[in-house]
């Protein structure tokens, strides 16, 4: 039992470190969240902003904004390890790679939740949507967040492990998240009452995606950060 507690402790240690760095440097809060709001506004301009169309596409626009912002948050999280030899130090530290993965993924997840809350405020204010089923909204938002954070951290680790250019991250990450984008959009359509579809069935798919991303991410992390 102490083994599991130790493992979770290590993961918590890494998560706390990443969140403390974010708290002090304010990159995600100060730059990524405004970017997400900007994307919503740009969609407004692009769809010549009459409330009816915006409400109809609200969930799709929301999740595209989340995915694009997630790319920036994941890139920032991966860049932390490229900054000053910290990746070598992490390899030398003896922290189990899976704990390292869970810690970093948790930090990205927390930042994504903050992003989703702010974006939801944007939807309510800018697009004038009404939330019909808040519980469905919450559960699908959480599960999609886990899937995006886990898959993002996996590919972020791959990029930092190989030191490849960060332009590789979108082409690797976004196709894998296609099912999450479809599922989350459908679940939000139901939760916002814009389309008659079974949101809870889609949440099931999101749960499967989140589980697979987390398990594969944890197992593969050791391989990914070793060069």
């Amino acid at each position, binding site marked *: 039992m102490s083994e599991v507690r130790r493992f979770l402790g290590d993961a918590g240690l890494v998560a706390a470190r990443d969140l403390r760095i974010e708290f002090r440097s304010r990159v995600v809060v100060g730059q990524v969240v405004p970017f997400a709001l900007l994307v919503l506004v740009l969609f407004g301009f692009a769809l010549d902003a009459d409330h009816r169309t915006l409400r109809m596409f609200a969930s799709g626009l929301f999740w595209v904004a989340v995915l694009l912002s997630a790319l920036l948050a994941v890139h920032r999280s991966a860049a932390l390890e490229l900054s000053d*030899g910290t990746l*070598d130090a992490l*390899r*030398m*530290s*003896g922290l189990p790679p899976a704990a390292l993965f869970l810690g970093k993924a948790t930090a990205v997840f927390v930042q994504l939740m903050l992003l989703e809350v702010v974006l939801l405020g944007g939807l309510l204010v800018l697009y004038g949507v009404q939330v019909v089923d808040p519980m469905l909204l919450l559960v699908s938002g959480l599960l999609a967040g886990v899937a995006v954070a886990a898959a993002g951290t996996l590919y972020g680790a791959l990029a930092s492990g190989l030191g490849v250019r960060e332009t590789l991250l979108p082409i690797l990450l976004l196709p894998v998240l296609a099912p999450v984008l479809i599922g989350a959009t459908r679940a939000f359509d139901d939760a916002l009452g814009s389309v008659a579809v079974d949101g809870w069935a889609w949440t099931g798919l999101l749960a499967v995606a989140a589980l697979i991303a987390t398990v594969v991410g944890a197992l593969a992390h050791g391989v990914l950060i070793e060069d």
Partner: protein
Amino acid sequence: MAGRYRDGVPVVELRGAVALLGNFPALAGVDLTVESGEVVLLRGPNGAGKTTLLRLCAGLVRPESGSVEVLGHDLVRERRSVRRRVALLGHATGLYDDLTVNQNVRFWARAAGLSAVEATERTASALLRMGLSERLLGQPVHTLSAGQRRRASLAALVVRRPGLWLLDEPHAGLDQSGRDVVDGLVGDAVAAGATVLVSSHELERVAGLGPRVVTISGGVVVDDTGPAVGGGSRV
């Protein structure tokens, strides 16, 4: 107590070790044996393979061929398990710019498996030993000078009390007091029964640390003054 290694079995034993930097054979067949408690000075020009040799002993580089044994671990077969008992000081600091000195060193202490209490206690003593003033501890690392950063990264290694120290040009960019701190660190390590490999491309900087000088050039050992029984350095 530092991991005092079983007598008789050398801490580091390389036989015909080859290691690559990309496609370039940084190490082209190194033979080296280091006994427990020794201080070995690695001398050689830039690009001779000193850094790769240290990273190889730390288990960060995959040996292409030859045998590599460190602290009883066969690094050809498995490279991760040895790392916890080794401290590698590279050119990079391994510190997070946005965190304070204290937060950084404490994180590495906890990451090495120390409990919260132990981590706090060892962090404080390590930072004191490295001569970093109280005022600096609460400041983010990016506000520190290169020398102060070097001392902070050394502190992050001291807390781990490793059995094997691998110092890659530790004196580079340090003032005289900084150099004294590094020399003191090597002394502490040897007193605690650890083994130290120090690399530098200027011999006079490390000459005082120990009698044995190994010269590396072109990825192989070209000269070795032999274990402690040998005479003074031959420059």
